C-alpha cells in the first residue's frame, strides 16, 4: 500500500535548483534508501517530506491525501505522523534522555508522559540511561535517545537524515539493527538518506539514487545495486579499486546469485581454455539474499572475448562489460 507519494517536486535555493522534478512512491513498511553524493539534494528531499523545507513545485501526498505543496504548507499536527532523526542527534543538551523524550509527548498533551517516555527508551534499549544528559552519552546512545523521541508519538513514518554518518562502525550497525527492528515490529516505514552505500544496502528494500537534483535510478535494491545503469550508480556501487582500473583495462563483471557451489571461474578456465585474471570479487547480502560479483580482465584477443561472452550466455550467467565511464 502506497504511504508517501512525491510528485514532480522541485526546490531551489537562491536560484540554484537543488531538487528537480522528483517523483517517487514509498510503500507502507518500506525501508526506502535515498543515496547520493554530497550536495545531491538528498537531505533537502527528506526535509521537504515533513515540511522543514517549503516546496517550490510539486507536492507530497501521505496516504493519498495532500501533505505539502507549493501553496499548501504542511499542517503542524500532521508532522507528528512523520518523525525525523538527524546526523547530529539534535537533542536538547539541558534535558536528560527521559526529558528529551517527554518533550515530544508534551506536544500532544499526553497523560502519563514519564511512563511513556521510559517505555520508548526501553524499546530502543537505553532505559538505564534515562537520567543521563546527552553530554554523558556516546554517539550511538544519543542517536537511540533521538529515535526514542521520534517514536514516542507513534509516527507511521520515520525520516532518517544521515543518522549513522557520525557514528563508528559498531554503533552504526547497532542503530541500523534497531531501525530494522522498529520496521519489523512496529510496521514503521523508514526513509533513509545516506551517502554510505553500506548503510543503504544493509537495511533498505528499495532505493533511489540522486544526482545533481534529479533521481537517476530507482527501484528494488537488488535490481539497482546488481544492475547499475548510470555512471554515477556504477561509481557508487563498484569498489574503488575497480574504478581506478577502468581507464586502462577492459573488464567483465559477472553477477551471480550467491550460489557458492558453482565454481564459475574454474569452469571458464576449463571449458573455454582461457586464463582469466580476477580484478575484484565480493558478495553482498541484499534483502536477505546473497549476491556475488566477480570482475575479471577480458582476454586480449577479440575472438577470445566473444567466446567467453557466448559461454556465459549459454551458462545463463549475468555479465556486463565494465567500460570507463
Amino acid at each position, binding site marked *: 500500500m502506497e504511504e508517501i507519494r512525491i510528485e514532480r517536486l522541485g526546490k531551489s535555493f537562491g536560484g540554484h535548483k537543488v531538487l528537480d522534478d522528483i517523483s517517487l512512491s514509498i510503500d507502507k513498511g518500506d525501508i526506502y534508501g535515498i543515496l547520493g553524493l554530497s550536495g545531491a539534494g538528498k537531505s533537502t528531499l527528506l526535509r521537504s517530506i*515533513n515540511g522543514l523545507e517549503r516546496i517550490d513545485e510539486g507536492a507530497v501526498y501521505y496516504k493519498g491525501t495532500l501533505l505539502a505543496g507549493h501553496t499548501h504548507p504542511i499542517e503542524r499536527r500532521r508532522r507528528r505522523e512523520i518523525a525525523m532523526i538527524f546526523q547530529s542527534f539534535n537533542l*536538547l*543538551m*539541558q534535558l536528560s534522555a527521559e526529558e528529551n523524550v517527554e518533550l515530544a509527548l508534551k506536544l500532544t498533551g499526553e497523560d502519563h508522559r514519564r511512563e511513556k517516555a521510559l517505555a520508548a527508551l526501553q524499546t530502543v534499549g537505553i532505559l538505564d540511561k534515562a537520567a543521563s544528559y546527552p553530554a554523558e552519552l556516546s554517539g550511538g546512545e544519543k542517536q537511540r535517545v533521538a529515535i526514542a523521541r521520534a517514536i514516542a508519538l507513534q509516527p507511521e513514518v520515520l525520516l532518517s537524515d544521515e543518522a549513522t554518518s557520525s557514528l563508528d562502525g559498531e554503533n552504526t550497525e547497532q542503530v541500523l539493527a534497531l531501525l530494522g527492528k522498529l520496521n519489523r515490529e512496529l510496521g514503521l516505514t523508514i526513509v533513509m538518506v545516506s551517502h554510505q552505500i553500506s548503510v543503504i544496502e544493509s537495511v533498505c528494500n528499495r532505493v533511489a539514487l540522486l544526482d545533481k537534483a534529479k533521481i537517476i535510478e530507482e527501484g528494488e535494491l537488488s535490481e539497482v545495486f546488481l544492475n547499475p545503469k548510470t555512471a554515477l550508480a556504477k561509481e557508487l556501487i563498484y569498489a574503488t579499486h575497480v574504478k581506478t582500473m577502468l581507464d586502462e583495462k577492459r573488464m567483465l563483471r559477472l553477477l551471480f546469485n550467491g550460489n557458492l557451489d558453482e565454481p564459475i571461474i574454474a569452469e571458464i578456465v576449463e571449458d573455454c581454455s582461457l586464463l582469466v585474471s580476477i580484478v575484484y570479487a565480493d558478495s553482498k547480502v541484499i534483502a536477505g539474499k546473497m549476491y556475488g560479483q566477480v570482475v575479471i580482465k577480458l582476454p586480449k584477443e577479440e575472438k577470445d572475448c566473444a567466446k567467453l561472452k557466448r559461454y556465459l550466455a549459454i551458462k545463463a550467467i549475468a555479465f556486463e562489460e565494465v567500460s570507463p565511464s
Partner: protein
Amino acid sequence: MNWQNLLLAGAQTLLMTVLSTALAYLVGLPLGVLLNVTSKKGLHPNRWVNLPLGVLINVMRSVPCLILIAILMPLTRAVVGRGSGEWYTMIIPLFFASFAFVSRLVEGSLNEVDEGAIEAVRSMGASDAFLIKNVLFREAKPHLYNGLALASITILGYTAFAYDLGAGGLIASAYGYYANHTSDYLGHPDIWVLILAVVVIVQLIQEAGLYVEKKTDKRRTIQ
C-alpha cells in the same frame, strides 16, 4: 558613618538595583525574545520588525544614563510624585537606561541555542510558542542566569548617578565623601567601608550568577 547609615545606604542600593533590574527584565526579556525570533536565523524571520526594533534598542543604549535621568525627570515626578531626593526616584531612569541592554543580553543568550535542537522539535509539529518556552528558554537557561548577574552588576554601577539626584545608596555616599572632603578623602575610613561594601555585593552577585550557571548547565557534564 554609623552602622545604621551604612545599612540604609546598602538597602537603598539593593532596592534600586533589584527593582530596576526586575523592570528592565519585564520589558527587556520579551524584546530580546522578539529580536531573536525575528532575526534572519530566528523562528519567525521578519526584518520589518527586527530592523526598527534593533535600531530603537541601539538608540536607547546610546543615550548616556545621566542625560536619561534629566530627560525623564518629568516622567519620574509624574509616576512617583517627586523627581529627586529619594532612592525610588532612580527606578525609572535606571529602567530606561538598562532595558535595551537587557534585551541584547537575552537575544545573545537565545542565539546560543543549537539550531538543530530547535529543528528537531519543530519537525515534530511544535508551534513557535512551544519552541520559545520549551526549547529556547530551557536550552539558554544557564546563559540567561549569567546575563541576569551581569545586568544586575551593570545596573548597580548605574546607581552611582543617584548622587546627582540626591537619591542615596552606597556609591553615591562614597562619592559624597569625596565631594565633601576633597583634600583628604582617601584618609577617611568611611569611604573605604563604602567601597568594600559595594565590592562585596558585586562579588556576591557575580559568584551567585556563575554558580547558578554552572549548576544548571548540563552540556559540560563529563562521563
